[in-house]
């Protein structure tokens, strides 16, 4: 038996996960190899497929930028021709003025603060990042741009996959049950627009519950029951 852990088991840094050559390991930061031995490098949940494909999903951690990721950033500084954006990663991102404004932009006449000011939130996509330079964002694309309504919840970035669920099963269920529009930034910021504040409140509670109970199985059903109960308490459902 080359894989020494079970599916959905909590592992710790330095824990031996698998031994031997016939193990398929997804290349990622959460697993490292010495010779034929594979060890976990973080606190995580194992994912074993078909008894030979192994990966570890981190339970703690920060967001690390990747090209094409959709993130929710907060403007923290304006320059002459670009904004500096906090995307909760080790690196600050850059959003160029030419990307936001459609017409040609003259830094002498125009002030970027008129368009996006410090503290504003944007839904953006990472278009460039290679670790030697800061990530570059774009707001060109469907649904991208400044966030003007709704609420934002922050969760631990490494638990985003669980909030989304397998092929979006979890998030679709939450959307359906709470009747909210939910957009997930992969950096752990989640944008919720609901029909009423109460709906939004229930959605926030549900997401916080998913974050807290990430590592306990049977989560989808539990969250579904939770949402129904909370809606009932608030007189929004029978």
């Amino acid at each position, binding site marked *: 038996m080359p894989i020494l852990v079970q599916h959905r088991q909590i592992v710790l840094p330095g824990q031996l996960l698998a031994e031997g050559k016939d193990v398929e390991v997804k290349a990622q930061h959460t697993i490292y190899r010495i010779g034929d031995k594979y*060890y976990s490098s973080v606190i995580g949940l194992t994912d074993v497929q078909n008894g030979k494909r192994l990966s570890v999903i981190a339970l703690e951690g*920060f967001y690390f930028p990747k090209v094409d990721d959709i993130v929710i950033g907060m403007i923290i500084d304006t320059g002459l021709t670009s904004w500096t954006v906090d995307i909760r990663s*080790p690196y600050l991102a850059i959003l160029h003025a030419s990307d936001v404004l459609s017409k040609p932009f003259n830094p002498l006449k125009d002030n970027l603060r008129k368009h996006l000011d410090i503290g504003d939130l944007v839904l953006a996509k990472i278009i460039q990042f290679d*670790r030697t330079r800061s990530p570059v964002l774009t707001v060109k694309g469907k649904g991208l741009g400044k966030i003007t309504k709704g609420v934002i919840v922050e969760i631990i970035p490494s638990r985003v996959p669980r909030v989304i669920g397998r092929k979006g099963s979890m998030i679709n269920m939450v959307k359906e049950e709470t009747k909210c529009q939910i957009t997930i930034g992969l950096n752990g910021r989640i944008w919720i627009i609901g029909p009423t504040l109460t709906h939004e409140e229930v959605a926030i509670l549900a997401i916080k519950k998913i974050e807290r109970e990430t590592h306990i199985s049977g989560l989808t059903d539990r969250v579904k029951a*939770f949402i129904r109960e909370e809606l009932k308490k608030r007189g929004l459902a029978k």
Partner: protein
Amino acid sequence: MRYEKIKLVDENGLRIDGRKPDQLRPVKMEVSVLKNADGSAYVEQGNTRVLAAVYGPREVHPKHLTLPDRAILRTRYHMVPYSTDERKSPAPTRREIELSKVIREALESVIFVELYPRTTIDVFIEVIQADAGTRTAGLMAASLALADAGIPMKDLIAAVAIGKVDGTLVLDINQVEDEYGEADMPIAMMPSLGEIVLLQLNGVLSEEEFYEALKLAQKGIAQLYEFEKQALMKKYVEVKVEEV
């Protein structure tokens, strides 16, 4: 005036605090104790109490310290003024600066710093109460805090100090044994990989004693490693499913 030497090991082979030579002090460990830090841990070994906090990886300030190919690690080992018998000045002493350095080097060998170029990982270790073995307790707290922050690392670090008192090798020495003993040897290891990340020796040991001390340390480290794993696991086990 004649000094009477304190007897550190009695005729039954028991130590000044009643422990056997190969017995650890009572251990208590907890992770995620601080809300504002990315990762944190608290470690208690007998009367030694240490708190560690980790921030990062994050942007480096001042910018010129940045390294293009790896993250920098900044470590501060510090003893609070009320940690000792007599008030300790809060300014970093020569000893604290040195310990910050050796702890940093031990941690550097564990963390995958090359994954996060141009960033910094900041580790703060505060000794709240000192009763010998603060660097080893500090290292354990730091490694737990790093794991809690989700920073990829090879292994947790478990560490213990071996002493030689009244000619006997003893595990996990306390303040009295440290002061009146003949030797003090802190050892830190990555237990799963069997690698030593820190080893210092203050005093004199013969070659045989050294190897025996190493063996004794490994025994203590194995026990401490289990405590560390339990402390990390506890955080997840304690999350109870709320039934609706």
